[in-house]
């Protein structure tokens, strides 16, 4: 095998200039080391190696300009955590509160198990689960025979129950694949074949006329249309918060701002984890850390994959912009590998959404948006919505797909240590597959811990928070009489009342940052982007939590909203005086009002 790998490498890279070393482990895992000419090459090479026969997976330690994806232990935090002593103890420790970790937590909360979820962000869902297309794919865009394909189709079917129990916004209205010419016809046939093999229900070709009838705002007439009626739409964050809240209601403990920095393993058995806030003891660690899952695996001494961050940028438009309601996969003008097309769709709240693109990057936390990203997104969207200007974009953001080099989900018990389950490489369609992934992990948990006993008092229902603007006047009247805060509108763009913001702060997973509130109730997400309601939200957070102004955050520990109070400075003797005299000098020159006019 080593020879074959050498050939693959030599075919692609000039090894005289860039000596690249491939080691094959006993378990079939290949480790790549050395300096690569650039990250694109390094990434492509790892993919080629992963495709080679008998390779279980690839650990990519190739570096570019001194940077690589190799795991470096955070020594200081490990020492700090150990010194702090025990933070918590449980049967099951779930690392990461994305849609996957939260889904698993909720699934396992049915049983007599003590469960904690550890999340390094200051709110749940700090990774891919908050920055995606929200599409519950039908299953015709995944390679047949993969775990992804199986769990995608199963997960899609399970969403109706999730939506009913957890009361998140859910629209099952289908999606289209379109072709405009001979070249894309081929791609469309491939998705048809994939859909057939993956057993996607109800998928069929429909006439362009039927399509134009269903999507009245689409002007460009396609040649062929593949319709997948089971495709649905959600808000990934809302699904995740609903799962987490329901899990919390059923006794799961969430520790936010708690980063797992090491895994304690004794004699091949997991004993718990080390976090920056202390030790958490437990029998089973479920690794759902998104794009950092390879690092958690390394901490447990069982890394057999590298997760390479693949950035995707999405653009959002104003609700009033015309466009299709369902996802259209209008073949992008530049074909990019490894994205499900990047098309045009609408979010569940009604905003047109375009993108994403796909760019391999080296920094797992790089969420910046660059002009090239939007060039791509605008280009792919313009195939179906011609004439759209970049200035129409009201928000753009990036998400990071956690992909391994096999480009499939990795969901399995560790073969090396007892008490460790990998749930890694959950890239798209991870959101769609989430219910099926949770089920699968439930079975793996029973394999690890033995037969699980069900709780008698499990409550699957999570009540939807009040959305004041959607209520009838009678219901609004009743609510205000019970709690006058609902009569106080804080966010004018989205008509959000103070009552709803206070609710968000007081729910099972409290929202205490600007972004946490924005994601739950959409305050600051509207046209004014928080310019008007920001100061009021700051006051409300301070009142409800007792935080000082400079302690209130947007998202992340350094993201203060204001740096302090001016009154602090006012003790300085001459400060107020300066200000008063400035007020006088602010007088305007006589020229004003005169406006240089003469009739």
């Amino acid at each position, binding site marked *: 095998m080593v020879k074959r790998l050498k050939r693959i490498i030599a075919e692609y890279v000039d090894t005289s200039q860039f000596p690249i070393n491939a080691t094959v482990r006993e378990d079939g895992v290949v480790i790549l080391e050395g300096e690569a000419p650039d990250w694109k090459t390094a990434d492509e090479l790892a993919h080629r190696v992963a495709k080679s026969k008998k390779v279980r997976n690839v650990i990519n330690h190739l570096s570019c300009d001194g940077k690589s994806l190799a795991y470096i232990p955070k020594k200081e935090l490990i020492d700090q955590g150990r010194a702090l002593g025990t933070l918590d103890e449980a049967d099951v420790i779930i690392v990461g509160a994305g849609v996957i970790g939260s889904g698993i937590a909720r699934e396992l909360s049915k049983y007599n198990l003590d469960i904690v979820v550890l999340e390094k962000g200051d709110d749940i869902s700090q990774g891919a689960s908050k920055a995606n297309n929200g599409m519950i794919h039908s299953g015709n865009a995944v390679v047949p025979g993969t775990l992804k394909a199986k769990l995608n189709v199963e997960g899609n079917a399970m969403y109706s129950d999730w939506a009913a129990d957890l009361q998140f916004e859910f629209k099952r209205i289908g999606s289209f694949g379109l072709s405009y010419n001979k070249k894309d016809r081929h791609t469309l046939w491939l998705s048809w074949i994939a859909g057939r093999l993956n057993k996607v229900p109800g998928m069929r070709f429909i006439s362009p006329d039927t399509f134009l009838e269903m999507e009245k705002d689409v002007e460009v007439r396609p040649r062929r249309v593949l319709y997948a009626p089971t495709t649905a739409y959600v808000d990934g964050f809302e699904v995740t918060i609903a799962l987490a809240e329901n899990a919390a209601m059923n006794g799961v403990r969430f520790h936010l701002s708690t980063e797992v920095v090491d895994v304690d393993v004794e004699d091949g058995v997991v004993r718990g984890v080390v976090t920056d806030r202390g030790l958490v003891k437990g029998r089973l660690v479920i690794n759902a850390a998104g794009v950092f899952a390879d690092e958690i695996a390394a901490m447990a001494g069982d890394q057999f994959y590298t997760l390479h961050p693949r950035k995707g940028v999405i653009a959002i438009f104003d609700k009033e912009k015309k466009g299709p309601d369902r996802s259209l996969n209008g073949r992008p003008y530049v074909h990019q590998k490894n994205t499900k097309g990047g098309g045009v769709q609408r979010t569940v709240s009604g905003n047109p959404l375009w993108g994403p693109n796909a760019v391999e990057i080296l920094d797992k*936390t790089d*969420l*910046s*948006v*660059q*002009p090239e990203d939007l060039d791509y997104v605008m280009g792919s969207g313009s195939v179906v919505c011609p004439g759209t200007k970049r200035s129409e974009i009201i928000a753009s*953001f990036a998400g990071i797909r956690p992909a391994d080099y096999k480009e499939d989900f990795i969901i399995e018990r560790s073969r090396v240590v007892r008490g460790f389950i990998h749930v890694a490489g959950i890239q798209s369609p991870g959101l769609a597959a989430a219910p099926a992934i949770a089920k699968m992990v439930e079975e793996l948990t029973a394999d690890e811990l033995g037969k699980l006993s069900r709780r008698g008092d499990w409550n699957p229902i999570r009540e939807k928070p009040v959305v004041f603007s959607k209520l009838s*006047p009678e219901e609004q*009247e009743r609510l*205000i*009489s019970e709690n*006058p*805060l*609902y*009569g*106080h*509108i804080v966010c*004018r*763009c989205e*008509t959000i009342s103070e009552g709803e913001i206070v609710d968000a702060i007081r729910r099972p997973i409290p929202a205490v940052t*600007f972004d946490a509130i924005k994601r739950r109730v959409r305050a600051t997400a509207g*046209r*004014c*982007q*928080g*310019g*008007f309601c*920001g*100061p009021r939200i*700051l*006051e409300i957070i301070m009142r409800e939590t007792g935080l000082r102004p400079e302690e209130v*955050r*947007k998202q992340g*520990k*350094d*993201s*203060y*909203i*204001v*740096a302090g*109070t*001016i*009154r602090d*400075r006012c003790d300085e003797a001459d400060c107020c005086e*300066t*200000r008063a005299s*400035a*007020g006088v*000098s*602010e*007088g*305007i*020159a006589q*020229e*004003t*009002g005169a406006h*240089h*006019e*003469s*009739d």
Partner: protein
Amino acid sequence: MKVIETDIAVIGAGPAGLAAALEASRLGKQVTLIERSDDLGGILQQCIHDGFGLVRFKKQLSGPQYAERFIEKLKASDVSLLLDTTVLSIENKVIRAVSPREGVLEIRPGAIVLAMGCRERTRSQVEIYGTRPSGVMTAGTVQRYINLEGYLPGRRAVILGSGDIGMIMARRMHLEGIEVLGVYELMPEVGGLARNVYQCLIDYDIPLHLSTTVREVFGKERLEGVRVVKVDKNRRPIEGTEEDIACDLLVLSVGLIPENELSRKAGVLISPVTQGPVLDESMMTSVPGIFAAGNVSIVFDLVDYVSDSAEAAARGAVRYLDGQAPSAEPLDVIAGENVASLLPTQYRVDYVGDELSFYLRVRKMESNVRVTLRQGKRVIKSKKQLVVRPAEMVTLTLSREDLTLIEPDTPLEIHIET
């Protein structure tokens, strides 16, 4: 649900709403003034600098002082006030509002004056790339944090856009001990009034960079810096001119736009010229009986004109209620040469007011020009003006006699002629 019947409902109690309510009340109508916040005066309450009221009162007042002149009169009038009351919708001229004390209110007026003011353009309306950290905010938000709440929004600030609020806040921040590193303006000229360049920037050694913009922001949690770049005459970045500046606050002063949320819900047409409702000579929208005043109609430069426009709207509403509203088919008023924005955009020849003011903004600076209103080849009114600048509104006032020159059928045009 409480139902209130009234002659005229005014939505918003900034300078526009206050003036409209007072004027309508003076003309004998029963007026209900609805305001979302719990005090009167609108945006003026946070504008503690002076420079308000020169035209109307021949005096330099601060924002709150200007407002106070109207508030005192209002308290003596019989206008009924609904404070802490937010209007949610207007349907068939029925207003639905909520307040913590009264619950849901239904207000059924004979006529409505919209006076909700304007809002600031945000990061999403300018092309800025990079991350989404905290520390990027509009000048109005900074103004509120500093002037009303007493908070320090940051320590090292860069300002994008040389609008008036941005320049005024540059000075305010400087005085509060915030290091103001510079004001960057995309256009080759200043966006705000010339006086503010002197009094807010030059006097405090705050550098102004024209034809330069902020292209990218850095920082994963809090803003850590910005990349500025010079632009060519087509406003495209010039490669090689990038410069990175470390700062923790980016203040956006990139323009104001009329608040249209409610206007749209009420079904009024929005003008691509003013970006506010299409209005006729008596400030009536495309929905009969709904009027607009102040910055909800067009973004004015001076608050004095805001008050004037509001009084005109109130008179229009009163005439409408009395059944004397002009009813001829409206003529269009067209924004001609070097006219970017214009009010009103429609005129009815059977209008019987005393005089009529046109308010306009130009696209580019020009000197020694004539502001001319024509109908076909005929000049209705023309005046000389030394300079016109985009930041300063130009007014053209027609007397009763001038108005008689206008004939039916042909659209009117306003040009800046060199």
